[in-house]
């Protein structure tokens, strides 16, 4: 089922000036409910502009954005309600923390929703557990935390609004492998337990292959490729044409295949590769 739909969306920055720049050209996109969708593309391809469309921070010049079948700009005064339903975590969200304690910072969103204190407290605890913010962190100042911890607090701040669609712009940028993994597994848990859709922008093909159900590739303000992992990564040549690639392990597997190993299908994650190789090499036992 479709939860969020963009139909014929166009957007131009600085319209009517010599600096006019077409950021989005006729975007048609459907985001499925309950799935994790990955958006890939070069810097400046319009990803961030599109994310700002999802929750109404930017209004399209033409075209419609439908949330659950309803145009979000039907009533512009109600746009903040849309922002509670489509939660957007910006790039480097740790810079948005401001409150005295982690707890009250996470509560900022729910408080703006006008919820009562019991519900807010419940949501803060819940969001903290999803995002991997430990209990003892809650009463500390957000400014004494490490970079990775701050990032998780910021993500919890959006999760606490319980959005039906959670959108994240490079949630793992600049984190170490452990930090990346923690964030992605937290997002996956949030998606499974709340039934929400998650949309992630990332530059890491490995992360995309590991966690996303569907992939969207953008180029020059247009949708270049869209589909399941097999549909997108299967077309390695088309990805290379715009300077993107497939996960490293996929390259390795196709080299092995060229070398004569009869590996049956395309492999996109290290875990799958491991399983296939072990069984092919007659293993499975230690």
């Amino acid at each position, binding site marked *: 089922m479709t939860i969020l739909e963009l139909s014929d969306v166009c957007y131009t920055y600085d319209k009517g000036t010599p600096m006019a720049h077409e950021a989005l050209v006729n975007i048609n996109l459907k985001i499925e409910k309950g799935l994790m969708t990955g958006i890939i593309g070069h810097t400046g391809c319009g990803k961030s502009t599109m994310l*700002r469309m999802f*929750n109404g*921070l930017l209004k399209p010049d033409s075209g419609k954005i439908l949330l659950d079948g309803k145009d979000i700009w039907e009533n512009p005064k109600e746009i*903040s309600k849309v*922002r*509670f339903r489509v*939660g*957007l*975590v*910006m790039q480097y*969200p740790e*810079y*948005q*923390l*401001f*409150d005295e304690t982690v707890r009250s910072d996470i509560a*900022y*969103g729910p408080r*703006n*929703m006008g919820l009562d204190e019991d519900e807010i407290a419940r949501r803060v605890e819940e969001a903290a557990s999803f995002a991997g913010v430990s209990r003892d962190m809650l009463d500390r100042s957000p*400014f004494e935390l490490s970079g990775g911890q701050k990032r998780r607090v910021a993500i919890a*701040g*959006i999760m606490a*609004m319980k959005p039906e669609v959670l959108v994240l712009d490079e949630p793992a940028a600049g984190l170490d492998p452990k930090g990346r993994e923690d964030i992605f597994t937290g997002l996956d848990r949030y998606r499974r337990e709340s039934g929400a859709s998650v949309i992630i922008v990332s530059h890491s093909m490995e992360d995309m292959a590991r966690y996303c159900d569907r992939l969207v590739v953008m180029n020059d303000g247009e949708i270049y490729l869209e589909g399941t992992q097999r549909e997108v990564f299967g077309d390695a040549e088309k990805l290379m044409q715009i300077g993107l690639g497939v996960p490293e392990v996929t390259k390795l597997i196709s080299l092995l295949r060229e070398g004569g190993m009869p590996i049956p299908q395309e492999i996109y994650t290290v875990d799958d590769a491991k399983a296939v190789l072990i069984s092919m090499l007659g293993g499975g036992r230690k």
Partner: protein
Amino acid sequence: MIKDVTLGQYFVGNSLLHRADPRAKLLFAVLYIVVLFFAKSAASFAFALAFTVAMIIISGVPFKSVIRAVKPLAFIILFTAVLNVFWTTGEKLLFEWKFIHIYEEGVIFALYMAVRIILLVVGMSVALTYTTTPIALTDGIEELLNPLKKLKVPVHDFAMMMTIAMRFIPTLIEETDKIMDAQKARGADFESGGLVKKAKALIPILIPLFVSSFKRADDLAIAMECRCYRGGEGRTKLKQLRYGKCDVVLLMLAAVFVSGIILCNIYLPYFSI
């Protein structure tokens, strides 16, 4: 909305005013301001107006941008003008009602005041901000204030502080936009509510902005030290300031302006104040 700030807005160009030495332009601007306050008669204001318009044409800055520089001051200009109309006393009474007395002198004075403020702003932006890069401007100020070094005034450090401050204005604006978007995504509302509510709504923007500014200042200081910055002592410049032909022309323009105003004041003293 925040992008409309015109502070430090430089227009790329190659006009006489662009090529002139920043020191010359600074001195020219000071002279311009002082002389503007000497203008007394209708003729001298008309001359100053014509001179300023000529300056805009020479600089090649579009009239639209010049008007944009004055717009934010519209209220102040109007306010001073109205005050002057009501509070100046003179001989020729134009209008009287209960305690309100309006004299001809008051109206003229108010008019002159308004024209003077507009010309001040326009002249300064055309001679300096629109045609000089912030870096060149601070360079010029540093050079001009150099004699103060003898009095142990840290001229170089002040100039460096100004350069850095100006350099980071666009960065701060961009960052404010970003933080506002982030808090809007969390349901922040900056438009509705009373004054107190609106002021409170700014806290989630100001605190992150301060925190990152301090952090950036720290980083910048370390980066400067890594490149062996040790203050102004013994520091040389890549671009040495030199006076040239343009500065001679600017000097002549200044002479025309000064003598024009003085002559108008003396020989065409209509509606003098």
